[in-house]
């Protein structure tokens, strides 16, 4: 039950994009087509879950015992950057179709603050290993939900007669604001 709550909270109540403001760059940058949004979600899910797991283990087995917690930011970002490279190399070898689909998004993920954000939050919230993993999965689903619905709306927006000065990014932000408003309706369910 506890785990279900972690997931629901991460997906709906404090949605990583619409409530926590993490991963806004890909949210605005790669949301003009549903297809690319799905690709990005896949890549983020993959890296986010592995990164949270690995950073959790490093934090609790290296940083805490040796009392160098202040190295957290540097360690985590290095882990994520090398992980992204590793995932890229492995994917290229074992699953070329998947690499083709996710390939262009992988390098972008290093600077996706959602990945580092979730890794840091999981440590800050004092989760255990299983809870951290579930938290990462929940946030990845939340990211995907926001990104894919948003890209669906943006595809429709292209067909509409938007005022000239609002075209592109401004209207995207206003739509995102309305989505965030809708997501606020979930507040208090857990």
């Amino acid at each position, binding site marked *: 039950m506890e785990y279900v709550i972690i997931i629901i909270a991460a997906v709906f109540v404090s949605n990583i994009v*619409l*409530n*926590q*403001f*993490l*991963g*806004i*760059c890909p949210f*605005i*940058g790669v949301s003009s087509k549903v297809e690319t949004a799905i690709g990005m979600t896949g890549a983020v899910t993959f890296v986010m879950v592995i990164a949270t797991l690995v950073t959790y283990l490093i934090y609790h087995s290296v940083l805490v015992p040796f009392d160098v917690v*202040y*190295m*957290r*930011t*540097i360690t985590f*970002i*290095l882990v994520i*950057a*090398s992980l992204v490279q590793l995932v890229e190399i492995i994917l290229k070898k074992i699953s070329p179709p998947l690499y083709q689909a996710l390939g262009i998004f992988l390098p972008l993920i*290093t*600077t*996706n*603050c959602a990945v*580092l*954000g979730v890794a*840091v*939050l999981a440590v*800050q919230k004092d989760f255990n290993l299983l809870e951290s993993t579930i938290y990462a999965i929940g946030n990845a689903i939340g990211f995907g939900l926001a990104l894919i619905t948003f890209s669906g709306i943006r595809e429709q927006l292209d067909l509409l007669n938007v005022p000239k*000065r*609002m075209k592109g*990014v*401004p*209207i*995207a*932000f*206003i739509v*995102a*604001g*309305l989505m*965030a*408003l809708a997501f*606020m309706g979930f507040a208090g369910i857990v």
Partner: protein
Amino acid sequence: MDQWKNFSKGFIKENAVFALFLGLCPTLGVTTSAINGLAMGLATTFVLVMSNLVVSLIKNLIPDKVRIPSFIVIIATFVTVVELVMKGYVPALFDALGLFIPLIVVNCLVLGRAEAYASKNTLWSSLVDGMGMGLGFTMALTVLGAVRELLGSGAFFGMKLISGDALLLFILPPGAFLALGYLLVLVNMLKEKTA
């Protein structure tokens, strides 16, 4: 190169937030008040200037292949400095900005300038570029913070201007998106006028 142009481009023409759409996470995340926006902007400016300086200094020593990881380590070092200094001297502000301080590391603006500017230009130009882009970013955050604070809690830099409740929505997450969206419309209008 004209250093004044190099400095001032960060404010309007190549403003990180209003023109390049970089560093949007902290832009939306911390701007619940003008002072938070200002503090976040200045913290980012410090990291940006220092990392631009160091990257420009050692650009010839870094092998091309490990360029990005090296930049990230340099940036992360200065972010840790900011983190520790803020925790020590302004703990209240540190708590208010929370997660977004360590996240300066992944601010695309900082890495973007290191890669696109500092790794190709002289020390002095990189310093000016970092100052200009950083202060432009600070300006954007402060403006957005001031707008949200004014509408959301009826105050300006913490000074209460109207008593009672204001449009609380603008302090809440949806208000961040809406305020930035409409600010961008305003910027577009201004650009048209000056063009």
